[in-house]
Each structure stands twice: as structure tokens, then as C-alpha cells.
């Protein structure tokens, strides 16, 4: 399930051309405001843009957008919530896996019964990751997934993503932390001012 990105650009950033082999992890580093988030949003097809994306031999343009986004999950830095309690954001059929993933990420099971306003930024970030992983996406687009986490929780997230990679999930990981980039990825690109990628 390799990812091919060809000439992806909008009026602000790009063009981006790169590929990530199946089960690989590409880290994208760079200063804030250079376009790392825009790159992920373009791959997930959330903003208008030009260029081609192919994943697992499937041309993205041939899939309806919702089907593509189920395959390629973007976990944004600022997660969105649409219901009152945390539990309502999770499908009931994933009850067991949900609790297992929460335990892996050091979240108490009682969290799911609480209103979303009571979850801290770090808790929300991990909950959003669980919510996305439950749908078994084959491509993960992670935008600073450990930005609000302590070192222990960061370690838990990194191991969880490593396990997904071992089962073939491909990852694009945006981080401003160079040490994390070298820890989690096997290839890294830097977003330079002006929205171009450099080695």
C-alpha cells in the first residue's frame, strides 16, 4: 500500500512530489506556518487543489471523497467534536476495541461518559486518534499527534503507530520535533518557507 503524491499544490504551497512505501513513515518537519497542515489537508482532499494522489494502486480521483477519507484518515492537530458526551463520538460496535485502545494510550475508561468540555487538550488529541484508528484506515495523516502530551503518553502514541505500521499501515507524520521525526520515521522531509519540501 504505497502512497504516491505527484505535483500536489494550491495557490499557497507546493508542488509536492514524493512517495512513501507500504508500511513506511514519512516525517514532515519545518517551522510553523510553512504549510505542513495544508499538505495533509490536500492529501485528505479537504481543500481544493491540483495534483494526483495514488494509494495502494488506487487513483484517488476514482473514489468518492468519503470512501477516500475512510482509507486515508487525517487526525488534525485541533480535533473537532459534534456531540455532547465523549462516548457519542464512537460507534457502539467498537466498544471493546475502543476501551483497549484507550487503555493503551493511558486514558481511563470512565472518560467516555463525560461531556467533551471536560476532556483536556491532551485527552482530546488521544481520543481523536482512537476515533480514527477504529475505522482501520490504511493511510494515517498525523498532524502533531503528540503536541500536547507528556513524555509517557507520547511514547504510548508512538508505539501504537509503530504497531499499525507493522501491520502495513502507511503514515505521514507532521511534527516540529526533529528528535521525534528521527525516532518514528524512516524518511524525513523538511517544509521550507514558501511551501516547498527539501530533504
Amino acid at each position, binding site marked *: 500500500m504505497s502512497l504516491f503524491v505527484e505535483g500536489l499544490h494550491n495557490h499557497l504551497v507546493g508542488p509536492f512530489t514524493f512517495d512513501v512505501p507500504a508500511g513506511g513513515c514519512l516525517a514532515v518537519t519545518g517551522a510553523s506556518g510553512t504549510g505542513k497542515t495544508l499538505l495533509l489537508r490536500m492529501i485528505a482532499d*479537504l481543500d481544493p487543489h491540483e495534483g494526483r494522489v495514488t494509494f495502494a494502486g488506487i487513483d484517488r480521483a476514482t473514489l468518492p471523497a*468519503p470512501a477516500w477519507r475512510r482509507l486515508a484518515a487525517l487526525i*488534525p492537530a485541533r480535533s*473537532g467534536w459534534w456531540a455532547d458526551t465523549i462516548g457519542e463520538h464512537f460507534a457502539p460496535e467498537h466498544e471493546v476495541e475502543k476501551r483497549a485502545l484507550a487503555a493503551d494510550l493511558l486514558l481511563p475508561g470512565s472518560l467516555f461518559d463525560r461531556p467533551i468540555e471536560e476532556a483536556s487538550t491532551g485527552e482530546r488529541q488521544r481520543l481523536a486518534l482512537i476515533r*480514527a484508528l477504529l*475505522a482501520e484506515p490504511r493511510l494515517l495523516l498525523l498532524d502533531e499527534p503528540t503536541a500536547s502530551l507528556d513524555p509517557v503518553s507520547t511514547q504510548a502514541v508512538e508505539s501504537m503507530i509503530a504497531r499499525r505500521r507493522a501491520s502495513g499501515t502507511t503514515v505521514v507524520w507532521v511534527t516540529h520535533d526533529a528528535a521525534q521525526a528521527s525516532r518514528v520515521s524512516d524518511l524525513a522531509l523538511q517544509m521550507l518557507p514558501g511551501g516547498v519540501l527539501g530533504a
Partner: protein
Amino acid sequence: MTPLTLHAGDIAIAAILLVVDAALSIGLRLRFHRALAIASLRMVVQLLAVGYLLRYVFAGHSPWLTAALVLAMSLVAVREVAVRPTRRLVGGNAIVALPNVLGVVLLTACFALMTAIRPHPWYDARYAIPLVGILLGSILNAASIALAGVLDNVRQQRDAIEAQLMLGATFRAATAPLLRRAIRAAMVPVINQMAAAGVITLPGTMTGQMLAGADPVDAVKYQILLLILLTGASCLAAVGTAYACMARLRDDRERLRLDHLR
């Protein structure tokens, strides 16, 4: 029963109340007497003008003149609907308001004139114009609340909507809660109006008819018919406007296009 005719002198006596208001404003330094004077003058001039215009239109029996007046009234309503929300669609809110206001008012007015009211001819201005006027009032309210409900809330709901899109939800599913809230809010005034009718308020149409000498039960029947028409028109306008507005904020790849908003 013959209606009691009012003379200019009778109205002048009633206007003493306005003079008292103005005196209070000056005496208590409330500073609304200027606005009051302008508004009263506008009210008298506007209503007299419309009275003479309608007398002319009613006497003329010209369907074209009636149609022109209906169109002009609808366009003023479209403008009001379009300017209420603080946000604007690129291309203007009128692209959503125009087809909805015009479509709903024509549909409900023709429906009522051809079935329940049945004047001869069915487009008789004496029935068509007042009916269109009162329908437009309700349509304007419902459409503008629905439009503002979508336009003014969609930006702050962006994270919630996009979170669902990122999980593979369709645009329709992700925006359904926002749409429902906007439509429900638009239906509140007309539902309140029906619930309060006769208990808390005596609706204007029936009050007017009774003052003009009509039998209370006859006046009430007319009022019931009108409230049903107003509710039907409000609901159609709210649903049509909210959905049409939402459709302007998406594209064929089911993205939320806030760049279509100014």
C-alpha cells in the same frame, strides 16, 4: 353591518397620543422625539401611498399590474432576507433567497386562491395582493432566520463538520445537525404565533376585520386559514433556504468550502 369609516379628524385626535409621547421624550430627555416624528410621518405617507396604489390596482382588474406588484413586493422581501445574516455568500445571499422566496410565495398564494378562497377571477387583486403581503411577511422571517442560522454558525462549526468528513462521513451527514438547528429556529416564530393565537394575542387580520364590522366567527375562520398558510409557507421557505445555502458551501468532492463565504 357596514364598516365605520374613519375621517382625517378622527385620526388627528388619536395623534394626540403621539404628541404626548414626544412631550415625554423632551421632558424626560429620552431623546426619541426626532425618530418618533420621522417614523410617524413615514408611516402616514407610506400607508396613504399604498392605499391609493391599491385602490388603483383593485379598480383596474389588470392581471399584469397585479403580477408586477407581487413581483415588486417579493423582490423587497428577497432583499430583506439577503441582508439579515452578518455573513455573505460569494455571489450574494440573493442567489439563495430569490428562488426560495419567489417560489414559495407563488406556490402558497396560488394554492390558497385556487382552493380555499376562490375569488372570481382567481387572481383578483383584492384577494391576491393582501394574501401575498401577509405570506411574504412570514416567508421573510423564516427564510432569514434559516439563512442566518446556516451562514452565521457554519464557521464556528467548522472543526465539528470537518472532523466527521475526515472520518469518511458524507457532507450531508456531517452538516445535518447544523441544518436541523437552523430550520427549527426558523419555525419557532410561526409555531409560537399559532400557539398564542386567541389566548395571548388577537391576530392582526381578525382584529382588523372585526373593527371593520365583520362577524367574529367569520373573522376567526379567515384567521385560521391564514395561519395555516403562513405556517406552510414558513416551513417550505426555511427548508428550501437552509438546504440551498448549505449546497453553496460544498463542492463535488464533499468538502466544506468556507472560501465561498465572505
